[in-house]
């Protein structure tokens, strides 16, 4: 049986090329469509999973900023790299905030609202950090770093490397 796809007399190039090897029967196509639908259903992931992703992203941005500023203060990272990395972290934080506020249904969730506030606060701190790095002001960067640590969730405060 040829996979006609309902396009007039168009013949699947596979069929011609492979000399009669049947690639997909109608039953096979039906199974594929069912599988695709099942997978697309999965795509409609739950609100909770979205919030978990957002939480992970916020934690990641916070940890990134901490690592970058510590590296910069220790003289391991250049002004250019530290500035660019903090700017990128700011963009990621804002992206997470935009994603959270994109849907009113999501924003109505108390956890989402709290995360949105976290993002906003984090973005403000990142902006302060970026400005401190730009000015080469170590003291101001250290203060901003302490503020980021103070706002961190307990789970992300320990940043020393444990083995995976």
């Amino acid at each position, binding site marked *: 049986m040829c996979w006609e796809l309902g396009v007039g007399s168009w013949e699947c190039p596979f069929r011609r090329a492979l000399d009669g090897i049947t690639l997909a029967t109608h039953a096979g196509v039906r199974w594929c469509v069912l599988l695709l639908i099942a997978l697309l259903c999965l795509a409609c992931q739950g609100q909770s999973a979205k919030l978990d992703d957002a939480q992970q992203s916020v934690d990641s941005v916070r940890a990134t900023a901490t690592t970058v500023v510590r590296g910069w203060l220790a003289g391991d990272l250049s002004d250019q790299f530290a*500035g660019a990395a903090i700017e990128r972290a700011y963009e990621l934080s804002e992206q997470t905030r935009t994603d959270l506020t994109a849907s009113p249904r999501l924003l109505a969730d108390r956890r989402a609202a709290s995360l949105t506030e976290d993002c906003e606060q984090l973005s403000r701190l990142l902006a302060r950090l970026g400005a401190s790095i730009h000015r080469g002001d170590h003291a101001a960067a250290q203060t901003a770093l302490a503020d980021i640590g103070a706002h961190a969730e307990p789970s992300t405060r320990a940043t020393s*490397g444990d083995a*995976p």
Partner: protein
Amino acid sequence: MKKIGNVVLGVITSIGGFAEVGSVSTAAQAGAQFGLQLLWAIAAAALILALFSEMSGRLSSVSGRPFASAVRERFGFHFQLTLLAAEFLTDFMLLTAELGGAAIALHLLTGLDFRWFFIPIAIAALVVLWLGNFSFIENGLGLVGLVTLVFVVAAWELHPATKQLAPNFVPSMPTHDAARYAFLVVSIVGATVSPYLLNFYGSGAVEEKWNESDIWSNRVTAFAGIGFGAVVSMATLVAAAFVLGPRHIQVESYEQAALMFVPLFGRWAVLLFAAALGIGCFSAAVEIALNGGYIMAQGFGWPWGANKKRLETARFSGAMTLMLVAAVLFAFVGFDPLRLTLISVGVTVIIMPLVVLPMLVLMNDEDLVKDYRSGPIGNGILAALTIVAALMALVVVPLEIVGGG
């Protein structure tokens, strides 16, 4: 003796050419998020690539034709056109991603917007493509690419214990984020088993005039070169797992990926990461553009060859130049390089069945491979891979939506 030297050179340059934007980013993401758990995916992908490369090299050595030419002869122009379009699209997206990776490397060093670097990188690539012969492009860039061994040094310095590494070479279920885990498995396979590598490898065999006496050196180069090359990807995953994972840093940007070197190399960290990423991506960009010329010329029956004068192969040279220029123009549209990398890897997975299925037929065609046809084991593996490739092609888009981040 000369052949042994060529094999050693082939293996070394394979190692140097393994790391590029897709393999670095997917391995770093996997390590940061799932620790060492996805080492098996890199090992499996490398094994698949080695199998395909060996077959592509064997096909070229025996028949004197690269994969694209053989597909055209065996299946006809119409089928070839489908494959050509699919491969050209994938190569084009990968090329843009590699240019983005090289530009990001310079951005990490200078802090300037990465888009400033597209044109200088493209000019440098064009100079290499127009002035270099195949040996220079393959071996020269491969040797410079050995800088990517810095990932192996980093992993070595982290002293992972064998008992930590070994269990992760067996597939296991994720403890969290199953969709993301599945997405990363498919992405790692897509990033490693790029169709361009197969045709590039086979075209290289023709350029270097391999014949039936090179079957064994082809086998050693494919398996040892890719095997050792995969160690670079695994080392990237290990470094990310040990440095980024415990700090809860996910890899959503290349700035975050670069941090994996900071505790190890201090003030050299960013320079080493940028050098490894930049050189790896630049080499891959040159190879992909060259392969663009190969597939167009072989698909349409034009004269081709990196060892020939460029004006003698004007359409081949024009095709690779146009592909590079078009990729630069596309890059200027504005995109997130990491995101584009993951999308191009997804597209690679989608077209994979189009490549695997013809390979199965070609490797059993007595007119092409004579007595060097695949045995029952080779055919069984290829048939299984055809099914796996088709399933991955089916799930990659939903997975990109659910687990792509």
